[in-house]
């Protein structure tokens, strides 16, 4: 399959940026050659640790070919004129440079196993995947467009929660995303989320857990409160497994834990079930 032009451009930029040839696995300590790691979808070949993955790498592994990005031009704001050690616009500029991303989520449409779908992918490398006005706006645009096309949407989450530097505007994005999810779902459209490491705070307390089917990657940390906050509250150390994807599966919070190399295949099956059921599915629960 030829590499699409959009990805070709992205990859070239990535290679300029990532001059380091080797990455150390944080789980088993193995030194991994970055090119091999990328070829293995950023999964450690020794211990199966799932590294945090760039949004465009993720998209290229999920869509069949083309991906038409939407909302890329949604502009970054600084609603509180926030400055602490650094100004917020300077922090954003730094992260744009470092990550090659314009913001914490990339949204668009493409084919997945032959099914048309909307796809939103968050990226932890941009301000810890935190949700501010741009992330909220892009998620809402994705779901509104998905609703007008009447196609399923899939969102990969990776987030430290709401973005502090946008204050209440960030908190209001939970309400915005919820409004968009609710309209999308009430029209009978299918929403699938794939929770990746980490998914916490405002993102887990909104669209991540509002989906019809919730998938998670192995070992991903998923929860509302951060580990540190809980440990400070209860004044004791938490067990290692606490808030992992496997822990949540056992507690009944998510549908399945799926290894990264099997995720596309699983999504295609889920989209397939929905396609077969389309004729009987209730549309327009409430207009």
């Amino acid at each position, binding site marked *: 399959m030829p590499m699409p032009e959009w990805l070709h451009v992205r990859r070239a930029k990535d290679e300029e940026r990532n001059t380091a040839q080797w990455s150390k696995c944080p789980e088993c300590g193995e030194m991994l050659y970055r090119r091999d790691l990328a070829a293995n979808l950023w999964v450690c070949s020794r211990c199966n640790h799932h590294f945090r993955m760039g949004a465009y790498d993720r998209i290229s592994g999920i869509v069949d070919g083309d991906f038409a990005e939407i909302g890329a031009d949604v502009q970054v704001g600084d609603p509180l004129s926030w400055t602490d050690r650094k100004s917020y616009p300077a922090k954003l500029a730094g992260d744009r440079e470092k990550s090659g991303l314009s913001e914490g989520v990339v949204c668009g449409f493409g084919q997945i196993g032959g099914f048309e779908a909307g796809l939103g992918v968050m990226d932890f490398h941009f301000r810890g995947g935190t949700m501010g*006005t741009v992330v909220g706006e892009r998620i809402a645009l994705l779901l509104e467009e998905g609703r007008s096309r009447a196609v399923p949407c899939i969102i990969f989450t990776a987030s430290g929660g709401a973005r502090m530097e946008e204050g209440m505007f960030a908190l209001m994005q939970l309400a915005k995303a919820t409004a968009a999810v609710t309209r999308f779902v009430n029209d009978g459209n299918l929403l699938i989320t794939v929770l990746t490491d980490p998914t916490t705070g405002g993102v887990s307390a909104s669209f991540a857990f509002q989906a019809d089917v919730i998938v998670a990657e192995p070992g991903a940390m998923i929860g509302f409160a951060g580990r540190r*906050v809980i440990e400070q509250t209860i004044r004791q150390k938490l067990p290692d497994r606490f808030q992992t994807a496997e822990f949540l599966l056992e507690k009944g919070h998510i549908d399945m834990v799926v290894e990264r190399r099997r995720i596309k295949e699983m999504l295609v099956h889920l989209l397939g079930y929905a396609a077969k059921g389309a004729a009987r599915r209730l549309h327009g629960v409430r207009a």
Partner: protein
Amino acid sequence: MNPFADRERALFELERRIAELRTASADQPVVIASEIATLEAKYQEVLHDVYGSPTPWQKVHIARHPNRPTALEYIAAFDRFDELHGDRAYRDDQAVVGGLGLLRGRAVMAIGQQRGRDTKENLRRNFGMVAPEGYRKVQRLAHLATRFGVPMVTFVDTKGADPGIGSEERAQSEAIAQCLVAFTDATVPIVAVIIGEGGSGGALALAIADRVIMLENSTYSVASPEGCAAILWADATKAEEAASHLKLTAQDLLRFGIVDEIVPEPLGGANRDPATVVARVLDRVDAALSDLDRYASPTLLSARYEKYRRIGSSKRDSSPAGKR
């Protein structure tokens, strides 16, 4: 900790002396009356000095004041209230109270986070920090409001959702996420009142509303100042600095269009005259409900959608990549 503590003591001292003189004034009415007047003038001066223009951090403390009216004080001023309990599955979380009631003759579903008014009650009510089963009770009551066709009135007063092990084990994220859906979907009018501290998603779970009313000294923020300082600078002691950055006051949020109206408080905060503040708030809730009564459910729902859809919408250019 409390930035008012020292000067509040000076106020209490003045209050005590005025009260003493009042009891003593039977003996020497004229002399004492003038002394009382002097002290009262002094008292007003100190009061203005202490509370005249509180900083955001001082407002955080007014919002957390132990004598500030809590949800149940507002509900107690209803004509009638019948509490409904539990999530039908696990437990009745007493950090949140709710039920059907009559407010100025109108049937409503009232829901509020309830912190304790003393240590014992705080333990029972977990300082107003709601657990998943509490948020599931809220969802149930929101659905019930739609079933009864009565508007919802919520009283928001929490530092944030409960961050304990049990709450994580019982899916706090999902419980809050589904509360947001329940309020977004409710076909009845919703009025939310930020009566104390509105902290993060745990507060928003009760605050998606057609009208958001906020008390003059209440705060409402993406995280508590302590939480924000811990997240950004790994240092919760920088809370005062965080409070000044967060733009968490009613005046900031009115300017941003995130709240719709501010209810004034007496100088020094609602704790100085709870009955007046409670009546004032219920008047405003009543007026908001009368106004919302005019709209049919589909109109309410689309206005609610547009309102949250617009908040913080970034400017966009017209290039095809951004077209939808």
